[in-house]
Protein backbone atom coordinates (compact mmCIF):
# COMPACT_ATOMS: atom_id res chain seq x y z
CA UNK A 1 0.00 0.00 0.00
CA UNK A 2 2.84 2.37 0.72
CA UNK A 3 3.57 2.55 -3.01
CA UNK A 4 -0.02 3.34 -3.87
CA UNK A 5 0.44 7.06 -4.19
CA UNK A 6 -0.47 8.66 -0.89
CA UNK A 7 2.60 10.86 -0.94
CA UNK A 8 1.77 14.41 0.06
CA UNK A 9 3.46 16.85 -2.25
CA UNK A 10 4.22 19.72 0.10
CA UNK A 11 4.34 22.51 -2.45
CA UNK A 12 0.93 21.68 -3.98
CA UNK A 13 -1.12 20.74 -0.94
CA UNK A 14 -3.08 22.94 1.40
CA UNK A 15 -2.16 21.41 4.74
CA UNK A 16 -5.12 22.13 6.99
CA UNK A 17 -3.34 20.46 9.89
CA UNK A 18 -0.85 23.33 9.91
CA UNK A 19 -3.48 26.01 9.32
CA UNK A 20 -3.24 28.94 11.67
CA UNK A 21 -6.73 30.47 11.80
CA UNK A 22 -5.95 33.43 14.04
CA UNK A 23 -5.84 36.07 11.32
CA UNK A 24 -9.01 34.69 9.74
CA UNK A 25 -10.82 34.59 13.07
CA UNK A 26 -9.81 38.11 13.95
CA UNK A 27 -11.07 39.45 10.61
CA UNK A 28 -14.33 37.51 10.86
CA UNK A 29 -14.90 38.71 14.40
CA UNK A 30 -14.40 42.35 13.50
CA UNK A 31 -16.22 42.12 10.15
CA UNK A 32 -18.76 39.27 10.39
CA UNK A 33 -20.31 40.13 7.02
CA UNK A 34 -17.25 38.47 5.48
CA UNK A 35 -18.47 35.02 6.60
CA UNK A 36 -21.04 34.82 3.82
CA UNK A 37 -18.91 35.22 0.67
CA UNK A 38 -20.18 32.85 -2.01
CA UNK A 39 -17.28 33.38 -4.41
CA UNK A 40 -19.41 34.75 -7.23
CA UNK A 41 -16.58 36.98 -8.46
CA UNK A 42 -18.75 40.08 -8.94
CA UNK A 43 -16.16 42.05 -6.96
CA UNK A 44 -13.32 41.01 -9.24
CA UNK A 45 -15.36 41.72 -12.35
CA UNK A 46 -15.88 45.35 -11.39
CA UNK A 47 -12.54 45.95 -9.63
CA UNK A 48 -10.83 49.16 -10.78
CA UNK A 49 -7.38 47.90 -9.75
CA UNK A 50 -7.94 45.09 -12.20
CA UNK A 51 -7.97 47.56 -15.06
CA UNK A 52 -4.36 48.39 -14.20
CA UNK A 53 -2.72 45.28 -12.75
CA UNK A 54 -3.62 41.66 -12.16
CA UNK A 55 -5.56 41.56 -8.90
CA UNK A 56 -8.30 39.22 -7.79
CA UNK A 57 -10.16 40.51 -4.77
CA UNK A 58 -12.30 37.35 -4.52
CA UNK A 59 -9.12 35.36 -3.98
CA UNK A 60 -8.32 37.39 -0.82
CA UNK A 61 -11.05 35.38 0.84
CA UNK A 62 -9.55 32.08 -0.28
CA UNK A 63 -5.99 33.07 0.59
CA UNK A 64 -7.13 34.06 4.07
CA UNK A 65 -9.12 30.88 4.57
CA UNK A 66 -6.25 28.71 3.36
CA UNK A 67 -3.61 30.48 5.41
CA UNK A 68 -1.65 31.73 2.37
CA UNK A 69 -0.49 34.76 4.31
CA UNK A 70 2.61 35.59 2.29
CA UNK A 71 0.73 35.89 -0.99
CA UNK A 72 -2.14 37.63 0.78
CA UNK A 73 0.13 40.33 2.13
CA UNK A 74 1.68 41.15 -1.21
CA UNK A 75 -1.61 40.95 -3.17
CA UNK A 76 -3.62 43.08 -0.80
CA UNK A 77 -1.29 46.04 -1.30
CA UNK A 78 -2.73 46.45 -4.79
CA UNK A 79 -6.23 47.40 -3.58
CA UNK A 80 -7.01 51.11 -4.00
CA UNK A 81 -9.96 50.96 -1.58
CA UNK A 82 -12.33 52.50 -4.12
CA UNK A 83 -15.18 50.34 -2.81
CA UNK A 84 -16.76 49.55 -6.18
CA UNK A 85 -16.79 45.87 -5.26
CA UNK A 86 -19.10 46.69 -2.37
CA UNK A 87 -21.68 48.10 -4.76
CA UNK A 88 -21.80 44.77 -6.57
CA UNK A 89 -21.46 42.23 -3.74
CA UNK A 90 -24.72 40.22 -3.56
CA UNK A 91 -24.01 39.35 0.05
CA UNK A 92 -23.45 42.91 1.21
CA UNK A 93 -19.92 42.30 2.51
CA UNK A 94 -17.99 45.34 3.75
CA UNK A 95 -15.03 44.40 1.56
CA UNK A 96 -13.11 47.61 2.18
CA UNK A 97 -13.14 47.01 5.90
CA UNK A 98 -12.01 43.42 5.34
CA UNK A 99 -9.02 44.67 3.35
CA UNK A 100 -8.19 47.26 6.02
CA UNK A 101 -8.43 44.68 8.81
CA UNK A 102 -6.16 42.27 6.98
CA UNK A 103 -3.62 45.00 6.32
CA UNK A 104 -3.67 46.01 9.95
CA UNK A 105 -3.47 42.55 11.46
CA UNK A 106 -1.24 40.69 9.07
CA UNK A 107 2.10 41.78 10.61
CA UNK A 108 1.01 40.27 13.94
CA UNK A 109 0.58 36.79 12.50
CA UNK A 110 2.75 36.41 9.46
CA UNK A 111 5.83 35.03 11.20
CA UNK A 112 3.76 32.26 12.76
CA UNK A 113 2.02 31.08 9.62
CA UNK A 114 5.24 30.80 7.64
Amino acid at each position, binding site marked *: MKDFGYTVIKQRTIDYDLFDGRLLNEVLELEPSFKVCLSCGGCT*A*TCSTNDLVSFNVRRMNLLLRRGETVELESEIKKCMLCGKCMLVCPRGINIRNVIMLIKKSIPKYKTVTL
Partner: protein
Amino acid sequence: MKHIVIIGGGIAGIETASVLTDAGHWVTVIEKEAQVGGKLNNWSYLFPDFTPADKIKSVLQEKCNEKDFSILHQTEVSSIHRKNGKFNIETSEEQQLEADAIVVATGYELFDARRKEEYGYKIYDHVITSADLEQLLLPNGNLTVAAGENPKRIAFVHCVGSRDEKSGNHYCSKVCCITGVKQAIELRKRLPEAEIYCFYMDLRMYGKHFEELYREAQEKYDIQFIRGRLSEASEKIDKSLLIKAEDTLSGRPLKMNVDLLVLLIGMEAGKGTASAAASCGIGCEDSGFLKTADSFLNSNFSEQEGIFLAGSCTAPMTVNDTILHARSAAQEVNNWLLRK
Protein backbone atom coordinates in the same frame (compact mmCIF):
# COMPACT_ATOMS: atom_id res chain seq x y z
CA MET B 1 -73.05 22.84 2.84
CA LYS B 2 -69.78 24.50 3.75
CA HIS B 3 -68.65 27.55 1.83
CA ILE B 4 -64.97 28.01 1.02
CA VAL B 5 -63.59 31.21 -0.43
CA ILE B 6 -60.38 30.96 -2.39
CA ILE B 7 -58.37 34.11 -2.94
CA GLY B 8 -56.57 33.91 -6.28
CA GLY B 9 -57.53 32.11 -9.48
CA GLY B 10 -54.11 31.01 -10.63
CA ILE B 11 -52.91 27.44 -10.81
CA ALA B 12 -53.16 26.92 -7.05
CA GLY B 13 -56.54 28.60 -6.64
CA ILE B 14 -58.27 26.77 -9.48
CA GLU B 15 -56.77 23.40 -8.55
CA THR B 16 -57.86 23.81 -4.91
CA ALA B 17 -61.32 24.95 -6.02
CA SER B 18 -61.67 21.97 -8.31
CA VAL B 19 -60.78 19.39 -5.66
CA LEU B 20 -62.96 21.00 -3.00
CA THR B 21 -65.91 21.16 -5.40
CA ASP B 22 -65.47 17.47 -6.14
CA ALA B 23 -65.55 16.85 -2.40
CA GLY B 24 -69.03 18.36 -2.31
CA HIS B 25 -68.31 21.87 -1.04
CA TRP B 26 -69.59 25.23 -2.20
CA VAL B 27 -66.58 27.15 -3.51
CA THR B 28 -66.10 30.75 -4.61
CA VAL B 29 -62.86 31.97 -6.22
CA ILE B 30 -61.94 35.65 -6.07
CA GLU B 31 -59.67 36.60 -8.98
CA LYS B 32 -58.32 40.10 -9.62
CA GLU B 33 -57.84 39.60 -13.38
CA ALA B 34 -60.43 39.01 -16.10
CA GLN B 35 -59.12 35.51 -16.73
CA VAL B 36 -57.92 32.64 -14.59
CA GLY B 37 -54.47 31.06 -14.78
CA GLY B 38 -52.40 33.82 -13.22
CA LYS B 39 -48.76 34.06 -14.30
CA LEU B 40 -49.12 30.89 -16.34
CA ASN B 41 -50.81 33.05 -18.98
CA ASN B 42 -47.48 34.76 -19.68
CA TRP B 43 -45.56 31.56 -20.18
CA SER B 44 -45.17 29.65 -23.46
CA TYR B 45 -43.44 26.37 -22.65
CA LEU B 46 -42.75 24.73 -19.31
CA PHE B 47 -39.57 23.10 -18.01
CA PRO B 48 -38.29 20.45 -17.97
CA ASP B 49 -40.02 18.87 -20.96
CA PHE B 50 -41.27 21.89 -23.01
CA THR B 51 -44.93 21.14 -22.33
CA PRO B 52 -46.92 24.01 -23.88
CA ALA B 53 -48.27 26.16 -21.05
CA ASP B 54 -51.54 26.24 -23.00
CA LYS B 55 -52.04 22.60 -22.22
CA ILE B 56 -52.12 23.27 -18.47
CA LYS B 57 -54.12 26.48 -19.00
CA SER B 58 -56.80 24.69 -20.97
CA VAL B 59 -57.12 22.01 -18.29
CA LEU B 60 -57.61 24.73 -15.69
CA GLN B 61 -60.13 26.45 -17.94
CA GLU B 62 -62.03 23.20 -18.45
CA LYS B 63 -62.25 22.74 -14.71
CA CYS B 64 -63.70 26.24 -14.41
CA ASN B 65 -66.25 25.52 -17.14
CA GLU B 66 -67.30 22.08 -16.05
CA LYS B 67 -67.26 22.22 -12.31
CA ASP B 68 -69.78 23.94 -10.19
CA PHE B 69 -67.73 26.63 -8.48
CA SER B 70 -68.10 30.33 -9.09
CA ILE B 71 -65.39 32.85 -9.94
CA LEU B 72 -65.63 36.53 -9.17
CA HIS B 73 -63.45 38.10 -11.85
CA GLN B 74 -61.74 41.47 -11.58
CA THR B 75 -62.43 41.44 -7.90
CA GLU B 76 -60.14 41.82 -4.92
CA VAL B 77 -60.61 41.25 -1.23
CA SER B 78 -61.12 44.43 0.76
CA SER B 79 -61.39 43.00 4.24
CA ILE B 80 -61.75 39.76 6.17
CA HIS B 81 -63.38 39.59 9.60
CA ARG B 82 -64.07 36.64 11.79
CA LYS B 83 -67.59 36.41 13.21
CA ASN B 84 -69.28 33.54 15.09
CA GLY B 85 -66.78 30.99 13.80
CA LYS B 86 -67.18 32.17 10.20
CA PHE B 87 -65.36 34.65 7.99
CA ASN B 88 -67.02 37.75 6.60
CA ILE B 89 -65.31 38.81 3.41
CA GLU B 90 -65.89 42.11 1.70
CA THR B 91 -64.76 42.59 -1.89
CA SER B 92 -63.72 45.54 -4.02
CA GLU B 93 -67.05 45.13 -5.86
CA GLU B 94 -68.84 45.52 -2.52
CA GLN B 95 -70.01 41.94 -2.30
CA GLN B 96 -70.32 40.35 1.15
CA LEU B 97 -69.35 36.70 1.40
CA GLU B 98 -69.63 34.44 4.40
CA ALA B 99 -67.14 31.58 4.45
CA ASP B 100 -66.38 28.61 6.68
CA ALA B 101 -62.79 28.50 5.48
CA ILE B 102 -60.47 30.61 3.37
CA VAL B 103 -57.69 29.45 1.07
CA VAL B 104 -55.10 32.06 0.21
CA ALA B 105 -53.67 31.33 -3.24
CA THR B 106 -52.40 34.73 -4.22
CA GLY B 107 -49.19 33.59 -5.91
CA TYR B 108 -46.12 35.69 -6.52
CA GLU B 109 -44.86 38.65 -8.53
CA LEU B 110 -41.92 38.69 -10.89
CA PHE B 111 -38.86 40.60 -9.75
CA ASP B 112 -38.74 44.02 -11.41
CA ALA B 113 -35.41 43.87 -13.25
CA ARG B 114 -35.17 47.67 -13.36
CA ARG B 115 -34.09 47.44 -9.73
CA LYS B 116 -30.81 45.91 -10.92
CA GLU B 117 -29.96 49.08 -12.77
CA GLU B 118 -26.40 47.93 -13.48
CA TYR B 119 -27.79 45.34 -15.93
CA GLY B 120 -29.62 48.06 -17.86
CA TYR B 121 -33.10 46.58 -18.21
CA LYS B 122 -35.36 49.20 -19.87
CA ILE B 123 -32.26 51.36 -20.32
CA TYR B 124 -30.50 49.37 -23.05
CA ASP B 125 -32.42 48.05 -26.05
CA HIS B 126 -31.35 44.42 -26.00
CA VAL B 127 -31.56 43.55 -22.34
CA ILE B 128 -34.68 41.46 -21.72
CA THR B 129 -36.03 39.29 -18.91
CA SER B 130 -36.82 35.60 -18.99
CA ALA B 131 -40.49 36.57 -18.98
CA ASP B 132 -40.00 38.77 -22.07
CA LEU B 133 -38.08 36.00 -23.80
CA GLU B 134 -40.87 33.54 -23.09
CA GLN B 135 -43.16 35.55 -25.39
CA LEU B 136 -40.49 35.65 -28.10
CA LEU B 137 -40.13 31.89 -27.98
CA LEU B 138 -43.60 31.40 -29.43
CA PRO B 139 -43.42 30.35 -33.10
CA ASN B 140 -44.20 33.89 -34.33
CA GLY B 141 -41.83 35.55 -31.83
CA ASN B 142 -39.30 37.94 -33.34
CA LEU B 143 -35.83 37.35 -31.96
CA THR B 144 -33.97 39.86 -34.11
CA VAL B 145 -31.86 42.58 -32.53
CA ALA B 146 -30.12 45.63 -33.98
CA ALA B 147 -30.29 46.01 -37.77
CA GLY B 148 -32.92 43.28 -37.91
CA GLU B 149 -30.39 40.48 -37.57
CA ASN B 150 -30.53 37.42 -35.41
CA PRO B 151 -28.36 37.71 -32.31
CA LYS B 152 -25.01 36.02 -32.80
CA ARG B 153 -24.11 35.84 -29.16
CA ILE B 154 -26.52 35.64 -26.25
CA ALA B 155 -25.87 35.58 -22.51
CA PHE B 156 -28.20 34.53 -19.73
CA VAL B 157 -27.69 35.96 -16.24
CA HIS B 158 -28.81 33.71 -13.41
CA CYS B 159 -30.01 34.89 -9.97
CA VAL B 160 -31.33 38.33 -10.98
CA GLY B 161 -33.20 39.55 -7.92
CA SER B 162 -32.57 36.31 -6.05
CA ARG B 163 -29.79 35.48 -3.57
CA ASP B 164 -29.02 39.17 -3.62
CA GLU B 165 -28.71 41.45 -0.64
CA LYS B 166 -28.89 44.47 -2.94
CA SER B 167 -32.34 43.44 -4.16
CA GLY B 168 -33.38 42.67 -0.59
CA ASN B 169 -33.96 39.01 -1.48
CA HIS B 170 -31.79 36.48 0.28
CA TYR B 171 -33.67 33.45 -0.90
CA CYS B 172 -33.26 31.34 -4.03
CA SER B 173 -36.21 31.57 -6.43
CA LYS B 174 -35.79 27.89 -7.34
CA VAL B 175 -37.15 28.06 -10.88
CA CYS B 176 -34.70 30.35 -12.69
CA CYS B 177 -31.76 27.91 -13.08
CA ILE B 178 -33.85 25.42 -14.96
CA THR B 179 -35.75 28.17 -16.80
CA GLY B 180 -32.38 29.43 -18.09
CA VAL B 181 -31.41 25.97 -19.30
CA LYS B 182 -34.81 25.49 -20.94
CA GLN B 183 -34.75 28.85 -22.68
CA ALA B 184 -31.13 28.44 -23.78
CA ILE B 185 -32.08 25.18 -25.49
CA GLU B 186 -35.11 26.79 -27.12
CA LEU B 187 -32.93 29.62 -28.42
CA ARG B 188 -30.43 27.15 -29.77
CA LYS B 189 -33.19 25.38 -31.70
CA ARG B 190 -34.23 28.68 -33.23
CA LEU B 191 -30.71 30.05 -33.73
CA PRO B 192 -28.39 27.17 -34.62
CA GLU B 193 -25.50 29.53 -35.38
CA ALA B 194 -25.56 31.57 -32.18
CA GLU B 195 -23.20 31.29 -29.23
CA ILE B 196 -25.16 30.93 -25.99
CA TYR B 197 -23.69 31.44 -22.52
CA CYS B 198 -25.15 31.09 -19.04
CA PHE B 199 -23.51 33.07 -16.23
CA TYR B 200 -24.31 31.32 -12.96
CA MET B 201 -23.22 31.28 -9.29
CA ASP B 202 -24.52 27.78 -8.59
CA LEU B 203 -26.72 25.64 -10.80
CA ARG B 204 -29.52 24.14 -8.75
CA MET B 205 -30.89 21.24 -10.73
CA TYR B 206 -32.87 19.65 -7.93
CA GLY B 207 -36.06 18.57 -9.71
CA LYS B 208 -37.03 15.53 -11.70
CA HIS B 209 -35.34 15.68 -15.13
CA PHE B 210 -33.62 19.00 -14.33
CA GLU B 211 -30.09 17.60 -14.21
CA GLU B 212 -30.75 15.61 -17.36
CA LEU B 213 -31.83 18.76 -19.18
CA TYR B 214 -28.69 20.56 -18.01
CA ARG B 215 -26.59 17.69 -19.35
CA GLU B 216 -28.49 17.80 -22.62
CA ALA B 217 -27.87 21.54 -22.85
CA GLN B 218 -24.14 20.85 -22.74
CA GLU B 219 -24.09 17.67 -24.76
CA LYS B 220 -26.62 18.27 -27.54
CA TYR B 221 -27.14 22.01 -27.63
CA ASP B 222 -23.67 23.37 -27.00
CA ILE B 223 -24.70 25.82 -24.28
CA GLN B 224 -21.66 27.25 -22.47
CA PHE B 225 -21.77 27.68 -18.69
CA ILE B 226 -19.51 30.21 -17.00
CA ARG B 227 -19.32 30.42 -13.22
CA GLY B 228 -19.38 34.08 -12.33
CA ARG B 229 -21.83 36.80 -11.46
CA LEU B 230 -22.15 39.72 -13.83
CA SER B 231 -21.07 42.97 -12.23
CA GLU B 232 -22.48 45.22 -14.95
CA ALA B 233 -23.53 45.63 -18.56
CA SER B 234 -23.04 48.63 -20.81
CA GLU B 235 -24.41 49.39 -24.23
CA LYS B 236 -22.11 50.11 -27.16
CA ILE B 237 -22.88 52.36 -30.07
CA ASP B 238 -24.07 49.44 -32.22
CA LYS B 239 -26.53 48.49 -29.42
CA SER B 240 -24.57 45.38 -28.52
CA LEU B 241 -23.73 44.95 -24.86
CA LEU B 242 -20.41 44.72 -23.10
CA ILE B 243 -20.72 42.55 -20.01
CA LYS B 244 -18.24 42.00 -17.21
CA ALA B 245 -17.88 39.06 -14.87
CA GLU B 246 -15.15 37.03 -13.29
CA ASP B 247 -14.63 33.60 -14.76
CA THR B 248 -14.21 32.33 -11.21
CA LEU B 249 -13.11 28.84 -12.17
CA SER B 250 -10.16 30.19 -14.07
CA GLY B 251 -9.77 33.02 -11.57
CA ARG B 252 -9.63 35.76 -14.17
CA PRO B 253 -11.84 38.71 -15.02
CA LEU B 254 -13.79 38.32 -18.22
CA LYS B 255 -15.46 40.67 -20.64
CA MET B 256 -17.73 39.69 -23.46
CA ASN B 257 -19.69 41.44 -26.15
CA VAL B 258 -23.20 40.07 -26.63
CA ASP B 259 -26.13 40.95 -28.89
CA LEU B 260 -28.81 39.93 -26.42
CA LEU B 261 -28.74 39.73 -22.63
CA VAL B 262 -31.43 37.71 -20.86
CA LEU B 263 -32.01 38.32 -17.14
CA LEU B 264 -33.41 35.30 -15.32
CA ILE B 265 -35.68 37.10 -12.89
CA GLY B 266 -36.87 35.55 -9.66
CA MET B 267 -40.09 35.47 -7.70
CA GLU B 268 -41.19 37.89 -5.01
CA ALA B 269 -44.15 38.00 -2.68
CA GLY B 270 -46.93 40.20 -4.01
CA LYS B 271 -46.68 43.86 -3.03
CA GLY B 272 -49.82 43.82 -0.94
CA THR B 273 -48.99 40.55 0.79
CA ALA B 274 -47.55 41.90 4.03
CA SER B 275 -50.37 44.32 4.76
CA ALA B 276 -53.08 41.87 3.67
CA ALA B 277 -51.56 39.16 5.84
CA ALA B 278 -51.28 41.44 8.83
CA SER B 279 -54.91 42.52 8.48
CA CYS B 280 -56.11 38.94 8.97
CA GLY B 281 -53.50 37.98 11.53
CA ILE B 282 -51.26 35.73 9.50
CA GLY B 283 -47.52 36.22 9.34
CA CYS B 284 -44.89 36.59 6.65
CA GLU B 285 -41.47 34.99 6.40
CA ASP B 286 -38.35 37.17 6.15
CA SER B 287 -38.61 36.51 2.43
CA GLY B 288 -41.99 38.26 2.37
CA PHE B 289 -43.86 35.09 1.44
CA LEU B 290 -46.66 33.89 3.72
CA LYS B 291 -45.68 31.93 6.78
CA THR B 292 -46.84 28.34 7.01
CA ALA B 293 -47.54 26.74 10.40
CA ASP B 294 -44.49 24.54 9.91
CA SER B 295 -42.27 23.33 7.09
CA PHE B 296 -43.13 19.65 7.12
CA LEU B 297 -46.54 18.50 8.22
CA ASN B 298 -48.59 21.70 8.12
CA SER B 299 -47.36 23.53 5.06
CA ASN B 300 -50.95 24.38 4.04
CA PHE B 301 -51.87 25.90 7.40
CA SER B 302 -51.44 29.56 8.22
CA GLU B 303 -51.11 30.79 11.77
CA GLN B 304 -54.86 31.42 11.82
CA GLU B 305 -57.34 28.62 12.29
CA GLY B 306 -59.47 28.31 9.15
CA ILE B 307 -57.16 30.21 6.82
CA PHE B 308 -55.24 27.88 4.55
CA LEU B 309 -52.38 28.51 2.13
CA ALA B 310 -51.80 27.07 -1.33
CA GLY B 311 -49.03 27.51 -3.87
CA SER B 312 -46.41 30.15 -4.46
CA CYS B 313 -47.80 32.64 -1.96
CA THR B 314 -45.81 30.55 0.56
CA ALA B 315 -42.48 30.31 -1.33
CA PRO B 316 -41.16 30.25 -4.89
CA MET B 317 -42.60 27.13 -6.45
CA THR B 318 -42.62 25.28 -9.76
CA VAL B 319 -45.89 24.58 -11.60
CA ASN B 320 -45.70 20.92 -10.53
CA ASP B 321 -45.16 21.74 -6.89
CA THR B 322 -47.94 24.32 -7.01
CA ILE B 323 -50.44 21.76 -8.29
CA LEU B 324 -49.43 19.31 -5.57
CA HIS B 325 -49.50 21.97 -2.85
CA ALA B 326 -52.97 23.05 -4.00
CA ARG B 327 -54.31 19.49 -3.91
CA SER B 328 -52.93 18.97 -0.44
CA ALA B 329 -54.47 22.29 0.65
CA ALA B 330 -57.86 21.07 -0.55
CA GLN B 331 -57.39 17.86 1.41
CA GLU B 332 -56.46 19.78 4.58
CA VAL B 333 -59.47 22.08 4.24
CA ASN B 334 -61.76 19.11 3.74
CA ASN B 335 -60.36 17.26 6.79
CA TRP B 336 -60.56 20.39 8.90
CA LEU B 337 -64.20 21.03 7.96
CA LEU B 338 -65.11 17.42 8.79
CA ARG B 339 -63.44 17.72 12.21
CA LYS B 340 -65.11 21.03 12.93
